[in-house]
């Protein structure tokens, strides 16, 4: 018996033109949480897909409990006791929670499903995980957190020995994260091993036992979070250094200059027609200001900016743009008035995956290149090329399909799209979500450059350091209401948290 539950040795995987994995190792002990870290494009997901049978590696070996295994499909992986909770969950929305938990292995006899047994089993499973969810509720009505727990419950029920969690906390509130960690700790004590992929350093240091770091498809090293001999803990700086291969002294570029007093956007008592959504939102945005919007998941921040951009309706309230009244008719109109919205869900509402970078860059600005509806291709190409170069988009050519880029580069293309429209007010909804450290810094630089050009930014961010590091002023929302403003200099995590949880005494988190 080997000392490791899982050993991945010298895994190599090549895609046309790219060596995605180059002799990568991963050794996982039973009953531990093993963090897998690296910038986007470092090969974490590819490695996990090799383990989970979605890709066939070109070279290398996988040993489970000392035995060599060949995994060619997700099904085989599950039979071997490996389960994966994906970053983006796709439940069958119109079926019940329990059916989602037992999907593909319904209890029953001779093809007849035993609903009672399924209900009881799900109930017991949920009770064990302290999950207060009705097994008969529709999966589509559950929050991201619940869906994630549901997936973990499924893995537990399948007696998984290894559970892969891919960015499990990217859409969870702090309290939901606590609950998740509680579950992880309990399962860890029972001997389950976790592979934990995340960009969030604090979380990693809190939950994991060991850290494996990858860079550009290569194995960098594995370190225990707490050194047994010295008792010393890993530091964030050390991890970042290993991930990027260089010292990162400043997480945020220095901000020069101050916002002017000129008000470019004034929002007065804007309310959604939906009771549970944003209510009575008022604020002013100044020229050359970065206004951060903080709050927990479910604070209706995204819904509010979508309404501002004309994607949702408002029931009451006024909006003024540069002093003139503005109605949020539709996104086309908002665009013509100088608004730009970088959405939170890059894949769902941002990129056109099967289209080349060129089309993705110019799509919002096509009118500018057309006369009588006929496009001037040369002009489009020149401008897209200039903008993508300026934002340092790493791509072989403008003809490359955007889905083949890493998350950070996709995000830069989307930013280029909105910079081309010359919008004065940029609304950035989680602009650095799921992006590696290097690309984050580049995006911060782009933001500051836009500010220096006289533009203004509204930024929604759930990452405290980013919110505090980049904003000139922070507006905090809680359950659809603005609960307070904080000026630069008076930010602390505690103050923001207090405002963000003002009404949350009876919160909805499980």
């Amino acid at each position, binding site marked *: 018996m080997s000392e490791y539950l899982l050993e991945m040795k010298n895994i190599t995987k090549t895609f046309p033109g790219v060596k995605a994995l180059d002799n990568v190792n991963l050794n996982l002990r039973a009953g531990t949480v093993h963090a897998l870290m690296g910038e986007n494009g470092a090969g974490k997901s590819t490695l996990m897909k090799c383990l989970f049978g979605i*890709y066939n590696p070109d070279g290398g070996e996988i040993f489970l409990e000392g035995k060599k295994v060949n995994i060619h499909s997700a099904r085989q992986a599950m039979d071997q006791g490996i389960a994966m909770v994906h970053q983006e969950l796709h439940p069958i929305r119109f079926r019940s929670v329990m059916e989602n938990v037992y999907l593909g292995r319904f209890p029953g006899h001779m093809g007849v499903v035993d609903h009672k047994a399924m209900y009881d089993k799900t109930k017991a499973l949920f009770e064990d995980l302290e999950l207060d969810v009705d097994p008969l509720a529709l999966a589509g009505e559950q929050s991201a957190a619940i869906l994630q727990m549901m997936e973990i419950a499924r893995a537990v029920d399948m007696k998984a020995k290894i559970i892969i969690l891919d960015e499990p906390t990217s859409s969870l509130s702090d309290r939901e994260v606590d609950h998740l960690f509680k579950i992880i700790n309990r399962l860890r004590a029972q001997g389950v091993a976790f592979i934990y992929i995340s960009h969030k350093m604090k979380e990693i240091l809190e939950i994991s036992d060991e850290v494996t770091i990858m860079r550009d498809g290569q194995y960098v090293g594995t370190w225990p979070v707490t050194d047994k001999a010295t008792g010393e803990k890993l530091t964030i700086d050390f991890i970042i250094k290993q991930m990027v291969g260089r010292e990162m002294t400043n997480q945020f570029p220095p901000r020069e200059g101050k916002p002017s007093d000129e008000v470019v956007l004034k929002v007065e008592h804007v309310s959604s027609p939906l009771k549970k959504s944003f209510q009575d939102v008022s604020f002013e945005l100044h020229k050359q200001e970065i206004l951060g919007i903080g709050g927990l998941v479910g604070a209706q921040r995204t819904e509010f900016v979508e309404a501002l951009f004309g994607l949702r309706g408002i029931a009451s309230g006024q909006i003024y743009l540069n002093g003139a009244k503005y109605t949020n008719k539709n996104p086309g109109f908002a665009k013509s008035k100088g608004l730009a919205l970088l959405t939170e869900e890059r894949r769902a509402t941002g990129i056109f995956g*099967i289209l080349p970078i060129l089309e993705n860059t110019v*799509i919002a600005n*096509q009118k500018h290149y057309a006369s009588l*509806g006929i496009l001037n*291709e040369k002009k489009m190409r020149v401008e897209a090329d200039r903008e993508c170069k300026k934002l340092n988009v790493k791509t072989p050519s403008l003809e490359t399909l955007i889905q083949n880029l890493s998350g950070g580069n996709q995000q830069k293309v989307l930013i280029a799209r909105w910079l081309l429209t010359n919008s004065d007010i940029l609304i950035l909804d989680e602009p650095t979500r799921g992006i590696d450290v290097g690309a984050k810094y580049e995006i911060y630089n782009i933001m500051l450059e836009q500010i220096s050009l006289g533009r203004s930014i509204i930024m929604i961010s759930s990452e405290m350091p980013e919110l505090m590091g980049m904003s000139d002023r922070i507006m905090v929302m809680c359950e659809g209401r603005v609960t307070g403003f904080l000026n630069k200099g008076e930010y602390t995590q505690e103050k923001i948290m207090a405002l963000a949880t003002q009404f949350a005494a009876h919160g909805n988190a499980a």
Partner: protein
Amino acid sequence: MAENVSKTKKLFTVGGLIVLALGIILYFAKTPLGLARKIYDLPVFLIIIGLGFALKGFMSKAKSDNDLELSSKSFSEFLTNNAILLAMLVLVVVICILQPRFMQIRVALDILTQSSTKLIMALGICFTLLIAGTDLSAGRMVGLASVVSASMLQTATYANRFFPDLPQVQVWLPILIAIAACMVFGALNGFLVAKYDMHPFIATLAVQVIIYGACSLYFDMPPNNSQPIGGIRPDFAQLGQMRLFAGIYKGFPGISILIPIAVVICVIIWFVLNKTVFGKNVYAIGGNREAAVVAGINVFRNIMGIFILASCLYGIAGVLEAARTAGATNNYGNGYELDAIAACVVGGVSLNGGIGKVGGIIMGVLIFTIIQYGLQFINVSPMWQQVIKGVIIAVAVAIDLTKYRRK
């Protein structure tokens, strides 16, 4: 890289020139060698193919990103990418061996003529497929356009006129009315899809039934009472039957006017899809509708545009059908939409939206016509032809999809 480009260039240029030379030699040698009755117009085809390849070779010089690598991997990739085309070539060779009369210019022109109206329909339907939709009303629109145009374009002396008192109007007027009638229903399709977010399958199914009913009502009006419309004016029939350059040399059957019409429409549609804001929006909506909304694209207007443009093309196809056959009934065009969808799909248009090229659609339509015509030529029973057609659709799509699946 530069070396690879010159390789592409070399391969195409040299290969093309060899085929070209072979064609020219055979052309002059076939009579002295007594091959005229054995190879028919094969030399002319060789000359055309050779010229095409040689030209491609010359053109490829300009493009530097179009490199070609000669390896077993690129070869197998080439095979999967062109499987249906290659299968068709094999079939054509087999037919040519079994029945050398197949190698005639006359046959090639027949195939192109038969492809023309199908191609126009396929180009229309591809817009609806590109937004991950479909259009089941296409065939019935062909019927509508043919009945409407034919009903107003009968000779004055014909006994059974649809409108006995109608004067001899300009040809273009009934044509425009027929196409406009289709576009009204196209707008209805678009409205249902864009306004109510109805799935195009259902919306166009409903409209298809409406069109057939409306067309039958029109067709049943006294004094016609559902009799096939005949006595078509020769100037209208010319639009589908005229042959250009007929008899410029002995035995040349002439080029059907349908071919240049289809070519012009292909060029226009290619331009619309690739060079206009509308075309780019179609791909964007098909690629990711939500993202298109966020990018400020007016989805409603574009979907309306798609269905109206598509119906305009079906209308044109319907008018041409009426002219070609010099007649019309309300059952014209029945089921054409499925052939058009099949041709698009075989030509690489994705039913998931966002993927599809005019060149592929032309190929898809030609493949079907060539196979159908070829099988008839060697006397394969029509029932077997159906079976083969179905197999082609399934195999083509299966191969196409493996291209997108990465392991």
